[in-house]
Each structure stands twice: as structure tokens, then as C-alpha cells.
């Protein structure tokens, strides 16, 4: 079989390569997205101090360290059997909302956004943030930069550092919020809400207002009917920081709703010999391979999944947008992978509203932001919704708080099977016998994984490259059939 290899895949965080195999008819027989890296956190964290984990697991991902920091801190709460005071919980959730707003901004404008705003077939040199700047102007680009800047600035003031905060402890956080800082947080939060609304308007104008893009979103090549997972509060509304985990089926009906500590009853991980990354699936359904449907244990945990798994949003502006999306796309659940970008913007809006809600809560500047644990640590599970999916940290320790065992299921890992299926289906839908394989076509296949905002997101796009590229297609004897180059010196 002929093999097309995309190595490395780009505009995502982390390492990966895609191998597409073509049969003799020139149709796609299979596609594999291999993850060629592993670092071994689950093993080398054994023997470490429990309180070091929020700092160590920060470094699982430098784009969403706050997610790991929070999940780890919550796991420590559970490990030490201590319930933080209300001020601490609110501070953590506010901090987390600020982070969410920042992260979703960078993904939409820098990573996945260019494919939409500029178009999947746009010249490579324009298919990035600079292209967006040119198209929409420096006024708007300035807003994006300001949102990111403000976000990281507040993360540093509250959590210690702009990347890899050092703030979470069992029983609370290491420092509270002063009145001066609270004012600043509120002011920037209100600006952030406006920015979120503006981003949705941009999406409306540029994407939804363009029939070609709408057709792309609703194209069957990008549809997968799988289970969807997200965290919901007591009203079944989306919550990023805390709640119960809810899974709904492809038909929209609730399959499971469980507390963090019971996750092992619902989720298991499958191993393949061609990737270092494991493939989680729903235990009660079982692993049936890389297939869609109610009988397959494959599930997604993305912004779209979270909206599918919930009954609504907890804040008014986001709720309005939530209703509009489902109305536009024909009801719940929505299975269009590319609609994840829309869901992400709705979450951006919710994050900014929640940010201001908590910044104006009377308890947020409370003086009791930490309690000292008194119980002996033994075992604890902590979960949050990372921007890229449900994140689970599970620690076991001895009586001194030295870890004896660690289990982690990280955001994007949840989606590993679905990502592979999306890439394969997109490849099968777009590469057919007689179709000329052009650069833009292959980028359209890559859009299938970019919607998931895989692994650790990369913050922005910068430059236009005169991208050098070479496509070589060989037959099964290794003879070159076709070769095309561009911009090679």
C-alpha cells in the first residue's frame, strides 16, 4: 500500500504524526495518528511528596498548567480528607475561569481559528494569526493580545507565576485576594465579557455567514456519533471547576452520572502497539475498536461534549448562545466535530461571565483561604474540566504523604480514539481515486484533529512561512509515481 506520512503534525501542542495508507484503488484503507512521546509521570511521581504534585503536574502541559494545578490540588484535598473554606473554593474557581478565558482565546485565534477565518485552502502563508490580523485589522488583533496579556497577568498576580502557578495546597490556596486586586480582576473581567461577545460575533460574520464553511461544518466527513462526557453542577449546567461527571449517549440520553471517586467504574484505558498514548473508553459499553455508535465505548470529552452532556449554561449570555447553537444545528446532541469551535466560544463567554460573578462575590476577599489538614493522607481523586477534556488525578500515599501510586487520565487522552477516527474519516471522505492530492486538501484533513485542540495547546501562531514542502507518492515497490515540490531552496 502507498503511505502518506504527515510528520510532524502542526498547530497543536505535543508531538504526533499521521500515516495514511492508500489501497490499490487510491482509496484510504486506514489512517493512524501516532503519538511518539511519553514521559512517565505515573511512574516517576511515585516517591514524591504529595504537596509537590501541583507543581510537578503543572509541567505535564505548559499551556494548561492551571488545569493540572487545580486537579492536583483537589486530589490533595481528597487525599488529606479536608474540605477547603468557601473563600478558597471561590478563589480557585475564579482563577480557573480566568485561565479558561485566556486558553480558549488563544486556541480560537491562533490554532484552530486560522483554518476557519482564513479558510482551509487559503495560502499557507496566510493561514495563521498574521493572516487573521491582515484580514480583520490591528484593532482586533490588539484585543486578542490584550485578552491574553490580561489573563496571564492576573494568573501571575493571583497564582504566583504566569506559566506554572505555585498556589494550590490541600485545604485551600497559599494566598488570598486583596481588595485592590479584586477591583482589577472585576474590571478586566468585564472587558473580557465584551471580548467574548465580540469573538462570537466574529464567528457569526466570518464563519456562519459563509455557506462554504457551514457546508464544511455539516459535511459528513466530519461527523462522529459517539458518547459525550463533561462535568455538570447540581442543575446539570456546565461547570469547569467542580461537579459530577455526566456521560450522554449518541442519542442524547444520560448513560452515567458519577462522582469523581467512582471514575474507575466507568472508564478504562486500552493500549495499541503503534502509539505511546492510551485510548480511554467507557467500561460498561466495552472497547469495540475505532467505531461510532451506541455499542462502542469510544467517547469524546471536548467543549462540544460538555455542552452536549449538560442541560444548559449557568450564566445568561452563554445560555442564550447555547440555545442558538443547538437551534441552528438541529438539536442535541451535535456531532459535528468542527462545531467544537463554536462550543469553545460559548465556553469562553461563560468563563468570562463566571469570572465576574465570582469577582463580585462578597466572600472572594475573605481572610480564611486555607485550612490545615488534620487527617492522615491515604487516597484521593481530583477532577476538573481541562479545556481539552475531563482531567483526572488519582493519588495514593503513605501516612507521611509520600506518594505510593499515581493514576492520571489527561484531557486530550480521553479523545485519542475519537481523534483517530476523525482523521481517518476525514481522509476517507476527502482522498478518493482520481482526486489530486494538494496541500490544502491535506490541511483539511488536519482540521479534523485541530478541532479537538489536542493535547497541550500552543498559544499563538506567528509567522507566515514560505512553507517548503515536498509530496512524494510511491507504489508498493517503492517506485515514485508522483512528486511535487513548493518553495524548496
Amino acid at each position, binding site marked *: 500500500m502507498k503511505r*502518506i506520512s504527515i510528520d510532524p503534525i502542526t498547530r497543536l501542542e505535543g508531538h504526533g504524526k499521521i500515516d495514511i495508507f492508500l489501497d490499490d484503488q487510491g482509496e484510504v484503507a486506514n489512517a493512524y495518528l501516532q503519538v511518539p512521546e511519553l514521559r512517565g509521570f505515573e511512574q516517576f511521581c511515585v516517591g514524591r511528596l504529595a504537596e509537590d504534585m501541583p507543581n510537578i503536574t503543572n509541567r505535564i502541559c505548559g499551556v494548561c498548567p492551571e488545569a493540572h494545578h487545580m486537579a492536583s490540588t483537589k486530589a490533595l484535598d481528597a487525599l488529606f480528607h479536608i474540605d477547603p473554606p468557601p473563600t478558597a473554593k471561590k478563589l480557585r474557581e475564579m482563577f480557573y475561569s480566568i485561565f479558561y478565558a485566556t486558553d480558549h482565546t488563544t486556541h480560537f485565534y491562533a490554532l484552530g481559528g486560522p483554518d476557519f477565518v482564513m479558510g482551509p485552502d487559503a495560502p*499557507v502563508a496566510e493561514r495563521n494569526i498574521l493572516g487573521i490580523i491582515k484580514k480583520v485589522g490591528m484593532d482586533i488583533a490588539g484585543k486578542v493580545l490584550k485578552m491574553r496579556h490580561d489573563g496571564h497577568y492576573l494568573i501571575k498576580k493571583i497564582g504566583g507565576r504566569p506559566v506554572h502557578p505555585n498556589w494550590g495546597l490541600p485545604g485551600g490556596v497559599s494566598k488570598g485576594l486583596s481588595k485592590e486586586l479584586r477591583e482589577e480582576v472585576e474590571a478586566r473581567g468585564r472587558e473580557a465579557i465584551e471580548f467574548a461577545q465580540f469573538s462570537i460575533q466574529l464567528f457569526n460574520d466570518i464563519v456562519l455567514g459563509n455557506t462554504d464553511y457551514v457546508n464544511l461544518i455539516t459535511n459528513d466527513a466530519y461527523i462522529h456519533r459517539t458518547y459525550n462526557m463533561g462535568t455538570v453542577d447540581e442543575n446539570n449546567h456546565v461547570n469547569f471547576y467542580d461537579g459530577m461527571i455526566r456521560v450522554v449517549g449518541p442519542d442524547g440520553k444520560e448513560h452515567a452520572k458519577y462522582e469523581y471517586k467512582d471514575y474507575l467504574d466507568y472508564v478504562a484505558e486500552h493500549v495499541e502497539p503503534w502509539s505511546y498514548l492510551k485510548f480511554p473508553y467507557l467500561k460498561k459499553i466495552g472497547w469495540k475498536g475505532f467505531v461510532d455508535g451506541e455499542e462502542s465505548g469510544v467517547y469524546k470529552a471536548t467543549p462540544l461534549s460538555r455542552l452536549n452532556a449538560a442541560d444548559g449554561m449557568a450564566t445568561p449570555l452563554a445560555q442564550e448562545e447555547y440555545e442558538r447553537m443547538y437551534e441552528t444545528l438541529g438539536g442535541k446532541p451535535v456531532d459535528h466535530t468542527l462545531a467544537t469551535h463554536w462550543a469553545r466560544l460559548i465556553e469562553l463567554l461563560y468563563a468570562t461571565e463566571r469570572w465576574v460573578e465570582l469577582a463580585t462575590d462578597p466572600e472572594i476577599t475573605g481572610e480564611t483561604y486555607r485550612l490545615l489538614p488534620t487527617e492522615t493522607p491515604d487516597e484521593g481523586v481530583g477532577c476538573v474540566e481541562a479545556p481539552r477534556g475531563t482531567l483526572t488525578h488519582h493519588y495514593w500515599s503513605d501516612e507521611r504523604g509520600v506518594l505510593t501510586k499515581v493514576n492520571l487520565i489527561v484531557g486530550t487522552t480521553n479523545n485519542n480514539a475519537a481523534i483517530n477516527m476523525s482523521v481517518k474519516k476525514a481522509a476517507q471522505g476527502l482522498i478518493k481515486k482520481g482526486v489530486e492530492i494538494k496541500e490544502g486538501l491535506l490541511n483539511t484533513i488536519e482540521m479534523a484533529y485541530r478541532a479537538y485542540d489536542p493535547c497541550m495547546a500552543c498559544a499563538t501562531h506567528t509567522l507566515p512561512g514560505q*512553507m517548503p514542502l515536498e509530496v512524494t507518492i510511491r507504489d508498493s515497490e517503492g517506485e515514485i509515481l508522483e512528486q511535487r515540490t513548493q518553495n524548496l531552496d
Partner: protein
Amino acid sequence: MADERFEPKIVAFLCNWCSYRAADLAGTARITYEPNVRMLRVMCSGRVDPQFVLKALSLGADGVMIAGCHPGECHYLEQNYKTMRRFAMLKHTLKALGVEDARVRLQWASAAEGTRLANAINEMVEQVRALGPLNWKDNWVEEEDIDAALDRLVEEHAEAMEVPA
């Protein structure tokens, strides 16, 4: 199998005022002791930076000894107490890194205690001999043929079809 007997290489830091004099005394009194120890004279056991110990182990020493005046007898008054604390923390760390206990030793010996020092040396040499060579650098040698793995990568890149993102 009559292999050559393993001869440990031990590096010793001896303080000028007490333990180095003890070694001198052992010499003039013709007390025999194992020849495996390479002695380095420092003014005080408190001069011994843990980095010296780590460096010696990483460069091929099978063991390291630090010898100084008895607590309360330090020529510089209190510095051997610092040695004692430093040594305790160093041993704690080395244990966590998997370096066996007998390989790093703190020995007090006054200028009059040539025999005591000689006995300590003999004891340590036998203990390290029983443990075998440390060869610390071997810990970070990869078992797979790295050059072959790199060549395979070059081939894989050359034959793969390249595709734009």
C-alpha cells in the same frame, strides 16, 4: 574462575590537623592497611563540599571517606559539626539515589589514632570490595544501539511521503 580480585578505588578527604596526622602516624608506626585509598588533605573536614563526594562517585570512585577531628576537638572549633550535619543529609540523599550505605563513610580520628584510622580503612575496603565496583557512569549507558536507532530514523524520513500540514 580465578578472576583478579576486585580492588576498590576509594577517595578519602582527611583534615590537616587530626585525621591526616593519624594517617601519618599509621605510616611512621608501620601499621599496615589496605592500599586502596587515595588521600586528599584538606584543612578541615568542613571543607568537604558534598559536590566533591558526588564528583568522585560519578568519575569512577567506588567509595568516599571523609575523616576529621572528633566533635568538640575541631581545630576551627565548630566546623566538624557542620560536617556531621552535611554528611547526614548527604547520606539521606545518596540512599534515595541507590548508593549503598558502606560506600560513603564519615570517620573521626584524632592525630593520635593511627590504628583507629587504619582499622576504619580496612573495614571500609572490605565492605566496598564485597559490594563490587560502582562504575556509576554505566548507569546512564543505554542498552540499545543508539546509532542504529538514529540511522533507522534517517531511513524512515527518507522513504516516507511528505505532506504539508
